[in-house]
């Protein structure tokens, strides 16, 4: 069975290395500051014992006052998983660093989030809309898009 790691233990490990990057942590929840996502991602991938080399998915949820970007990471070797989130409070031009350099699988998924939510990922090699055409106005999966 894939063990889902507790947010609290991993939070303490992250806080040792990058202090101030964890916003909230509980058994199921681990929220990272939005500008520290790339550092934490590299740390999670390269640390022995964590070894999160597989990114299951990246998606976003519109929580009315902020966007919440959700990452699910797995380690195939240790068979454990972890879900981390990053919150984005800006609704006009939300932006987050891109994790494409860490896990290449995030390539198309980040483009999808940009297309449907409007969140830009800095450092992504090809930040363009993926499903809708280039001149499309608006971002459909936002809650205020009718």
């Amino acid at each position: 069975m894939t063990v889902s790691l507790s947010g609290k233990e991993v939070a303490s490990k992250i806080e040792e290395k990058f202090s101030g990057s964890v916003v909230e942590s509980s058994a199921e929840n681990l929220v990272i500051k939005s500008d520290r996502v790339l550092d934490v991602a590299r740390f999670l991938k390269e640390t022995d014992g964590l070894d999160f080399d597989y990114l299951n998915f990246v998606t976003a949820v519109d929580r009315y006052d902020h966007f919440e970007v959700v990452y699910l990471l797995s380690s195939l070797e240790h068979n454990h998983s972890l879900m981390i989130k990053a919150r984005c409070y800006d609704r006009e031009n939300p932006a987050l660093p891109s994790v494409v350099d860490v896990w290449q699988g995030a390539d198309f998924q980040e483009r999808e989030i940009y297309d449907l939510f409007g969140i830009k990922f800095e450092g992504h090699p090809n930040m363009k809309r993926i499903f809708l055409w280039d001149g499309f106005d608006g971002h459909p999966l936002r809650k205020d898009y009718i």
Partner: protein
Amino acid sequence: MAVRTEPFVLNMGPVHPSTHGVFRMRATLDGEVVVDIEPVFGYLHRGIEKLTEQRTYNGIVPLTDRLDYISSMSNNLAYCLAVEKLAGIKVPERAEYIRVIIAELQRIAALLIAVGAFLNDCGAYFTPFLYMFREREKIVDLFEMVSGQRLTYNYMRVGGVSQDLPEEFMPALRKFMDKMPHYMDEYDQLLMQNEILIARAKGVGILSGEQAINCSASGPVLRASGVNWDIRKADPYSIYDRFDFDIPTQTTGDCYDRYRQRVDEMRQSLRIIQQAIEQLPSGPVRAEVPHLVRPLVGEAYARLEAPKGELGFYLVSDNSIAPYRCHIRPPSLINLTALRDMVRGWKVADLIIIFGSIDITVGEIDR
């Protein structure tokens, strides 16, 4: 003196005899050699994720049919697993066994199309494709007995399946199980050692294990590159931990290995179905859940080993009859991340074969 050449862009447009649906690729070619490709998506984008926010939990099941329309039962099952995890619903035993039998039959049907379409791309002008369709026809007939449909089944419900197996199902299934290994041997005899197939597919489009993991590939693509990771064994859902089956892997990760991998997986599915038939209990086929399911506030992610890879549903609920957010993790889209690196340096003919060996369905990519 070298002749000056310059690369040109060839557009393999959305409507093309071989791109498995409306998928577009802009390939930069230097003569016949592919220098770069740029996939263009969105021709089948229907906004399914937005639609789910306005339908009840049970009403989303027909929407999930249309994701990977070749293996609709797996989509239904993945979605129902996610809702049951979110709402904490326990599924009765008979329903679990029926789900396993149906899911494995669906896997065989989808893999038959994948292998047939791959061989069609290699140029074996429809003959293996039609032979595989002969077997798929039998499976589709079984599904028609069960759900009344031939393509988009809408069979699973939250808490179980929608109706019990009819009487004629079991004898027909047994007859299919008797004949199928013989047909699989026939295909192996015709195709496995075919020199032209080996020349076209061996060593072409190699995807190494680490690269596959980095690109988040899953399913047969990942296992053909040598990574032993199958969700049915690593993170068993439903009752898969009660069955005895192997996870085949291959070594190189070229197109031939991906073809081989799919054939091996079909054999393993036959083993699982045989065991499930023997252990099938009686009982109700659906849990006692209200038709309008109303889970508590929370979120859940449930994943399934679909024929194409890891299909997962991430559901967020706010205690209403419709989900707050439903995200579908599409295996086809994520498997395509590796396409660019796999294809550079090969020729146009190989581009089609490599693309066919990844096996995508555009309904799942675009949602």
